[in-house]
């Protein structure tokens, strides 16, 4: 517990980025409802998206220039080089999503839509800069409630609300688990600060076991790890493309970071071990089993999908499995690997959704069977799609490959000499070999199969998508650049790592 009395100016300086975002959100709403009321939908979306992006950019540049630094009330609100980096990454992903939404026409409530995206981002920013149970829970709820609404925004589509309702019901349940787990943790330690909790954990009491399980269920739902992934395919398929991209990217970054911090700081002392054949009770074996399950289930079920969005959903489950490896290792290096992985993964996923949204605008379908002809119609976009999917598959020299490599190295390095997690790494590499098959299926449809289906023939040219297209190209360039020159992100990441993990 920090002994220095916090001042409001300190609180304010740490929360300025969030404040900027909230003000932007209100401003966007006001502008959309007053001067732009009579404008066309796509103009409204474009201007709201651009305005929101400017707000995010302002927040990011404040973080980058002012370096808000401090630790309020023993971890309630943190500011250091590491949170800075994470916040900037989240803001960048939000900008990509906002720009992606420009030009869409799925709803008339444009101001509200952008407002919700920005509010969700505020939740994420708090989430990565706190080590306090209460703030974690409130931010998660802020984030989740915005996401439920964002998922249901396409009121013309029945599937959109059905999926959103499912998401909401599952989400509510997982929040209950999370809260129950948190309350047990509080009961065990009399504190909401993660480090205080760790200090009070002595051995693995039955209550702590229940707490660990509940927290894992709650956060496993957020990161869409098997077996808590059932909402993901529906949401990915039915939510409006920007919402789906947002759920699949920024919220993943924040949830994984908080999961990592909670497990590695809060449960310190109850690690256990997941060496093959020598499981020791603790949180690591729980995570290890979930990781293994996610990798196997995600990759094998993805093979059978005929909708590209559902395929991405199951691949997200598989990727959640890979990323959980970083938790099982819970070292500094594995945290760096996790951040690198989740950031590049999110970039590739947003990119894939951006391309898909254009495909859907043209053919009205995201089925693999309706992709043929895409490469002839849109050579640049289909090339971008190839880059995103191959990066997800982990083909060098794209970012996804280095992410995997670094993650696996960090996982093996967790303890010197014996490599207790080798079996998980082997499983991960083996299942990622499977994943190439379904990514190639999509690319095969786009590049090789001759266009025969009616959807491909009746593809219409849709105008006014200059910004989403530019987003695709920029994201593809980022994926290639970060893959060919990983030090760009890695070097700042390693220097920014917090000293204690």
């Amino acid at each position, binding site marked *: 517990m920090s002994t220095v009395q916090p001042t409001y100016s300190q609180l304010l300086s740490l929360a300025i980025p969030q404040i900027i975002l909230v003000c932007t959100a209100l401003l966007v709403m006001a502008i959309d409802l007053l001067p732009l009321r009579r404008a066309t939908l796509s103009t409204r979306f474009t201007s709201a998206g651009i305005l929101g992006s400017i707000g995010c950019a302002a927040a990011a540049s404040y973080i980058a220039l002012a370096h808000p630094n401090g630790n309020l009330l023993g971890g309630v609100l943190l500011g250091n080089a590491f949170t800075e980096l994470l916040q900037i990454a989240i803001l960048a992903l939000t900008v990509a999503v906002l720009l992606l939404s420009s030009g869409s026409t799925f709803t008339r409530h444009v101001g509200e839509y952008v407002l919700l995206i920005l509010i969700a981002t505020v939740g994420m920013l708090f989430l990565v800069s706190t080590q306090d149970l209460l703030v974690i829970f409130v931010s998660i709820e802020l984030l989740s409630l915005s996401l439920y609404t964002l998922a249901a925004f396409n009121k013309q589509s029945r599937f959109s609300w059905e999926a959103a309702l499912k998401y909401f019901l599952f989400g509510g349940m997982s929040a209950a688990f999370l809260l129950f787990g948190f309350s047990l943790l509080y009961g065990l330690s009399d504190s909401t600060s993660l480090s205080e909790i760790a200090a009070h954990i002595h051995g693995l009491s039955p209550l702590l076991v229940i707490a660990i399980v509940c927290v894992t269920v709650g956060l496993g739902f957020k990161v869409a790890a098997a077996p808590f992934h059932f909402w993901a395919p529906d949401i990915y398929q039915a939510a409006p493309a920007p919402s789906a991209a947002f759920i699949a990217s920024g919220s993943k970054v924040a949830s994984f970071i908080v999961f990592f911090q909670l497990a590695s700081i809060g449960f310190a002392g109850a690690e256990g071990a997941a060496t093959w054949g020598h499981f020791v009770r603790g949180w690591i074996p729980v995570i290890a089993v979930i990781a293994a399950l996610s990798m196997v289930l995600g990759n094998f079920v993805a093979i059978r999908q005929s909708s590209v969005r559902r395929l991405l959903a199951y691949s997200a489950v598989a990727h959640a499995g890979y990323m959980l490896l970083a938790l099982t290792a819970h070292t500094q290096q594995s945290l760096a690997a996790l951040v690198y992985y989740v950031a590049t993964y999110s970039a590739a996923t947003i990119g894939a959704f951006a391309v898909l949204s254009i495909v859907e605008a043209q053919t009205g379908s995201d089925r693999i069977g309706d992709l043929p002809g895409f490469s002839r119609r849109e050579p640049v976009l289909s090339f971008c799609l190839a880059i995103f999917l191959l990066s997800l598959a982990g083909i060098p020299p794209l970012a996804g490959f280095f992410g995997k490599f670094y993650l696996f*190295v960090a996982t093996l390095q967790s303890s010197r000499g014996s490599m207790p997690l080798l079996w998980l790494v082997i499983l991960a590499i083996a299942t990622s*070999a499977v994943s*190439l*098959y379904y990514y190639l299926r999509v690319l095969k449809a786009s590049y090789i199969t001759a266009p025969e289906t009616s959807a491909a023939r009746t593809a219409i040219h849709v105008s006014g998508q200059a910004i989403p297209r530019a987003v695709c190209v920029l994201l593809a360039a980022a994926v290639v650049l970060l893959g060919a020159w990983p030090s760009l992100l890695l070097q700042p990441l390693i220097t920014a790592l917090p000293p204690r993990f």
Partner: protein
Amino acid sequence: MLAWTIYISFFGAAILLLLPKRAASFARCLALFAATSSCGIALAAFLRHRTGEFFTIVDKPWIPSLGIQYHLAADGISLSLVLLTGIVAIAGVLFSWNIEDRTNQFFAFYLLLIGAVYGVFLSYDLFLLFVFYELVIIPKYFLIANWGSTRREYGAMKLAIYSFVGSAMVLVGLIAAYVGAGSSSMSLDKLAGFPFSAHFQMVAFPVVFVGFGILAGLWPFHTWAPTGHVAAPTAASMLLAGVVMKLGAYCCLRVAMTLFPLGLGTWSHPVLGITSWRETFAILAVIGILYGALVALVQRDFKFVIGYSSVSHMGFILLGLMTLNLMGLSGAIIQMISHGLLAGLLFAVVGRMVYARTHTRELAALGPMNLSSALPFAAVTFVIAGMAGMGLPGFSGFVAELMIVIGAWRAFPVLAVGVGFGILIGVVYVWRAMQKAFFAERRHELPPPHPLQPITVPEKIAAALLIASSVAIGLYPQMVLNIIQPALHSPLFAGLRQGGW
């Protein structure tokens, strides 16, 4: 300077992608120019470094925090294989002069493949090597799936999955070795010099060896090879058989065997009378030789004959590696070069000279066409290539097979007998294919339905180039031996020398 072989190829590929669609003849010339100039660079380097000593081309930090260098280097072995790649690449471009469908893309993928192959041969950092190694997969897939023939999508997917599974195994081994050696460097000599425990090497060696061996057509993981070769367009099957399979064999020697030399030692308990991985792989290699030859003997499709003959010839290479004596290893490397040239030539005859004109590869259908008088050049080329492949003195195949048999005789006298049989069957299947395709008895004097196009000049030049190279090695093998044997004596192979020869 040698690094420019890679850059020219990649740069050429990038330009080709950006070219307008109708610039087909320019695309061909550009591809030829890129292939010729990189081959010229390779030749110049080959002539300059007559001693075969190891030399570094580029060595710059790439990912400093992980100790990964951008390190390109060459010694006699890689130099001769780089030269082989250059020659086959030129021939491949000349033999695909007739590609009309999306010419730019075809040559772009082609040059990407070539550049990646150069990269594998020249990389000295294992991370870099792996990046290039995986980079080979994607252009291969698209070349076959887009421009191939019989069951092209199936063949391409099978090949991609097999390659990816192989490289996944390699990745497991490499990461384990990297972490086991303290995660400070991925450099080949550093890792090869690290004293891994004998137990670790025993486990890691087969994983990495089989991983690379899959690409080298190691029986029983060879099944991608015949289907892939048959499905591929001519230039791609030339590259596949000529160069890409050599990548597998080269990496078996360069990575698997140098990193884990103790993995070749004897087991503590013999299993089924086999006492080491060395014997296991030698037996698999001989099975590959006999199996490939026997299956080639009964094929009806002309291209499958060549496809299976490749499996058989690759068996010689793997057997040569497992002899662990100077004679066998040098023979294996010469066989890589020799088979690279001859397989390229055979596939060119079957795919380009015959199939592109007659539109059938059925041996029974080709016979009545009286090809020996319709396409005398094709017939003569096939006779020469077939004879050279079966080991007629004066050609490269003879030198290579002789050295491997002598090496095998010293190491495994019993297996050498099997090899003898393999050579014998080799004579029979070449003879049978030649007889059926070109010199079948004339039954009716049916004029062909449409006169066959005469052999074009580019084809003649390419065939002459390949034949001349093979003859040059056959008549003066010292040319290559002088450059590879010093390389085999270099400190990199010290571990192997201490183990065996």
